[in-house]
């Protein structure tokens, strides 16, 4: 197993600020917008973005939530690893809101498919957009593309993209892991 650094802390910081600015460009004061992070890993990215939007760009009353898609996944009972549920924290109705789904890595697109179904349980949103930090293009199983994207990565299937956060793994970094066999 070898690993290659894709993004270091400085590069990650620049990308987070760019993503925040792109969000402001489209959502202005975020009055009717909600950011929804996918559990478990999307929550770190969501918190960072929310922090930047609040402190650097003075966005007030930003609505954020966490969505767990375990019960909506299409690989229930098909995986060797049993699925483990996390908590969902959405304390607002998404009815007529502009929702931005936030997740760290976009790979096959199946999680996003599940998230689209899961979101329907909270009402009918006006629009849904997708923000991802890493887009593993050429790996998609479904016709799903991000509206806001940090970095595109060309990775083959036995490679893995690992996103680390200070809050979680001790450093801010993105690695590409390779199996050497």
């Amino acid at each position: 197993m070898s690993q290659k650094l894709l993004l270091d802390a400085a590069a990650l910081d620049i990308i987070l600020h760019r993503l925040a600015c792109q969000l402001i460009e489209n959502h202005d004061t975020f009055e009717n917008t909600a950011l929804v992070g996918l559990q478990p890993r999307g929550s770190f990215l969501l918190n960072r973005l929310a922090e930047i939007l609040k402190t650097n760009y003075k966005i007030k009353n930003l609505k954020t939530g966490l969505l767990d898609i375990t019960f909506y996944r299409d690989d229930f009972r098909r995986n060797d690893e049993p699925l483990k549920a996390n908590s969902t924290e959405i304390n607002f109705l998404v009815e007529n809101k502009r929702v931005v789904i936030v997740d760290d890595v976009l790979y096959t697109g199946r999680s996003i498919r599940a998230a689209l179904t899961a979101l329907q349980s909270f009402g009918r949103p006006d629009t849904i957009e997708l923000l991802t930090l890493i887009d593993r293009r050429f790996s998609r199983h479904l016709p799903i593309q991000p509206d806001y994207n940090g970095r595109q990565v060309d990775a083959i299937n036995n490679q893995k993209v690992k996103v680390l956060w200070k809050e979680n793994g001790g450093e801010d970094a993105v690695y590409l892991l390779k199996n050497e066999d």
Partner: protein
Amino acid sequence: MSELSVDNVLGIKYLTVEDINLIHKTADQFKEVINRPIKKVPSLRDITIANLFFENSTRTKLSFELAEKRLSADVINFSAAQSSVKKGETLVDTVNNILAMKVDLVVMRHPHPGAGVFLSKHVDARIVNAGDGAHEHPTQALLDSYSIREKLGSLKGKKVVIVGDILHSRVALSNIYCLKKLGAEVMVCGPATLLPKHIESLGVKVELNLKKALEWCDVANMLRVQNERMDISYFPSVREYVQQYGVNRELLDSLKKDIVIMHPGPINRGVEITSDVADSDQAIILNQVENGVAIRMAVLYLVAAKIRRND
């Protein structure tokens, strides 16, 4: 751990502490689901569940059926009153006939203790026990312990007294197993005629005086007087039972602390507990009912998670 150690949920006796904790944790997520505007998830949409009730039940059946529908399972219902059981069909034949219609999971209530265990050895389906005679009622104990945990934070070292008809109660036995596994201290209290002999061997305390039992406990689980299971008189009159083992406001106020009052339902108001106790802030009876759906969703979800299609 994120998988049950068993294929069927037949009784708390067969579950590990990790199983119980996993069911509670999963129920947390389902409790959030059933409080959403749209209370349904598609997890079990390719699973068919048969509810086989060989004995009358209203709330358990409703609770299971609602849990199944919230998980998007296909549901068929069967009750013994309108069936071929009356025509002399055996349990295994009845169930195999239903399974021939491609059912994946069976939820069964049966008047005979051990019916679930027996069935699990003779048919090829997952089984969830919804009460077997005076033996076990695992989902009730899971929701009772979940409700206590929700109210008091943890069960470790908590003192729970189960009051009333312990002899005929499957709720009592499942609760004793469950609470002991989670580290609570358990006492049973009731007329000597309604306490099984050698109940101490399960590691519970026995107390005949209700006031003393209530002074000792943090939680009192008041069981229903099950007139339908009593073939002989176990106490002289209902009035005498109420005087000795009924909980009223006065009795609660005479205690030094606020204890939590539970009841598995249906309540005989004025017998086990008076109306003012049943409707007070100390009672978590309706929380138990709400938690019942979440717990049953968790149990069905986790049992179904172990079904694999051979394709």
